[in-house]
């Protein structure tokens, strides 16, 4: 396990350092989600009571679209100078690379959420009526659900034509139960209307199932020729 952890850490540190220096993905994501927030506020009247009902959907759609921006860049930067080929021939376990990439994306999207959540609260005049602490596990589980499959399908679409389009085409249908769980859980917590337990359980199940599937199949995808 030692090499897995060390390679994961090394890759993760490298990615974070790269992102920190360039801030390409982060800037793009922040600006993109800000745009989504503003456009939604024009599309839907941000009246206090109504917005609480739809805010869950708005927040997660905004984060989903923004995450795609980051996810598309995940592997693209490894294609330059045949870095990915080097990975392939190296004896390093493929899954450590995948975990590093997924964790990197997770941190990035979490950071985005941390920045954007207050903006949402202000723009939509939100006030949490349910148990607010539940938003943290929901956000963590939901983000992981998005990035684990996102990272995987980014790898799948890496070698396809027009891969920027391919990623959402592959990711969104698979993510439907996760998105629904996030949106419903958030709505329930915001409106205080019932219990979000089922959705959190469903998110956990989704995360477990698809993390397992990704780890089981990533090597196949990475080695696909």
């Amino acid at each position, binding site marked *: 396990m030692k090499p897995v952890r060390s390679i994961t850490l090394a890759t993760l540190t490298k990615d974070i350092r790269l992102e920190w220096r360039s801030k390409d993905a982060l800037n793009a994501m922040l600006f993109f989600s800000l745009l989504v927030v503003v456009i939604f506020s024009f599309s839907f009247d941000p009246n206090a009571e109504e917005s609480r009902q739809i805010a869950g959907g708005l927040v997660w759609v905004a984060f989903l679209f923004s995450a795609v921006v980051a996810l598309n860049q995940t592997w693209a930067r490894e294609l330059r100078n045949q870095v990915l080929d080097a990975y392939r021939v190296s004896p390093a376990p493929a899954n450590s690379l995948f975990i590093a990439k997924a964790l990197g994306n997770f941190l990035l999207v979490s950071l985005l959420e941390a920045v954007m959540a207050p903006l949402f609260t202000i723009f939509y005049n939100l006030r949490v009526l349910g148990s607010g602490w539940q938003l943290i596990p929901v956000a963590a589980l939901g983000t992981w659900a998005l990035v684990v*499959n996102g990272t995987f399908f980014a790898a799948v679409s890496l*070698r396809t034509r027009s891969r920027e389009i391919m990623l959402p085409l*592959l990711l969104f*249908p698979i993510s439907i*139960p996760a998105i*629904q769980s996030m949106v*419903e859980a958030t709505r329930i917590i915001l409106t205080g*209307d*019932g219990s979000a337990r089922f959705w959190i359980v469903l998110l956990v199940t989704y995360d477990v199932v698809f993390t397992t599937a990704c780890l089981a199949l990533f090597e196949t995808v990475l080695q696909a020729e």
Partner: protein
Amino acid sequence: MKRLFPIFAVLTALLLAYALYQALVVAPTERTMGDVQRIFYYHVPSAWTAFLLFFVNLVASVVYLVWRNPKADALAVVAAEVGVVFCTVVLVTGPIWARPVWGIWWTWDVRLTTTLVLWLIYVSYLVLRRFSDSSQTPKLAAVLAIFGALDVPLVYFSIWFFRTQHPQPVIGGGGSALGAMGLDSLGVPVVTVPSTVDNDLLGTDVTIGHMSAVDTVVQNVNRVRDTATSHERIFVIETMGRDTGHIALDAGLASGAESILVPEIEVPLEDVSRRILRAHARGKSHSIIMMAEGYGHGFDVARQIQEQTELETRVIVLGHLQRGGSPLASDRIIASRLGARAAELKSLMAQDLQGVQDERVKAQKAREEQIKERQKLDSELAQLRDLQAQQQQSVDDLQTKIYQTQTEMALLSRQSAQLAQAVTDMLQKQQDAIIAAAMQAVWTQVQLWSQSNNVGTIPASAGHSTKYRFIWPEPQANISQPFGPSKYWFEPAYGSYPHFHTGIDLVEPFGSPVYAADDGIVALVGSSSSGYGNYVVIAHSGGLDTLYGHLSTAVVKVGDRVSQGQPVGLEGSSGNSTGAHLHFELRINQKPVDPSPYLPPGAPAPQIDEAGGSRFIL
């Protein structure tokens, strides 16, 4: 293999045509849904095929990933492509069926949504295969297929739970309830609020809007009744109610309609017409027939009634007047209470699944109750029908009694008239007998007098100035009744005549002098309360006797010799007389004879006072 393609194509086309023929022509039409149900013959097999092919695709993908067998990959592609085609058929035919049956094209229920997500995943599968390099395609596609297969149960659970969290309130009547039942069978929780003017929902005493509609009908009947009464018309009022008669029944009872026609009760129109005709015979010339639209076509019913009764019949189809307007307070209260209960159920369903289950059990029990309710409704209708029959029976009985009473009364009046006639006849006969006896007594006395007295010495009046023997005893008089058969009952019988006037009646003013018709001897001066009253009889030669009756007083006495033109008394109204007059009677040898030939003509003219009837007679 490739050479077999045309053969397979032809076989497929033939089988498809046969299936089409079976589905569209041979299969019977479904009872509740109608022809649209035939789409099932494509929808369901397509769904089976699609799901089977997706499963084949999953197995082939796994096989490829494990053994890298290119044939498995080929099978996966084919299965995915054909599966997507069949899945598309499912998704297109589903809404076409749902629209007429549920009233909506699409609902985000578990099966539909899961199928849609499956379709999306396999479309993305096909897109991935097209966009990736051929060397990588099989592996990537196989991986995606496995992801899709893992995703489907999660989609299923998330949608199922989402639907239980969002019960659909359905407000409406039978159609809406049917749609709600369809959604319920798909696992979409629904709370139905019965709202229809028709009141045709099982298990409801009264639905929202029903009483308002009934009230509208009653008010309109009140307006129509004015015209029905004044113009003596029959009105057929067609109400709503789909295939039930609740509006017609309630409004008919409330407005006092003469007949109520509802689909639940078989009433031949001939009965209605008979009833109208009976009422018409009693004098009731207008009628309101309350008819539910489910019974038939208002214009047909009116035409038949008009043909059968030949009375002017008009139709009023109230139509959608009944569905609108301001609701009654009772409806507002019902709506508020049902709405509150629906909200309560909705929140209960959102809170816990156990509660939903309990409610389901309750709903099941309620449904069983509803079947009983339905039976009760039917029995109530049957009771009403009995009641109507009883009413009809009692009306008929009453009618018979009225006829009987009328006949009896006619009989009684005829009998009493006969009795009265008999009594009158008897009294008249008695009176007649008394009069006849009195008159006979007078002439008997005259006869007795003649036997002991001789009038032969009295000269005949032939020697007088005229060739007629008598002069008029009252020269200025009118004749009110001549000699001969009489129509008056009080004249006694003579010979074969029941009533015979034995003299002539002369009328002059009361107290006028009465002169002797010829010379003679006063044979009798008498008085009787009946018959001649105060009278004078003068015996003349030749067996002639003259009588002057009903005098107020006689001025001669028996044995007096009187000459022609000598006063014998004054005119009066004594005896059986109805007014002042003189009864002048001539008897020859005791036989009454018409005195006219003995009297000069031209004097008193015969004049019978028809209007006066019995005035101045006898």
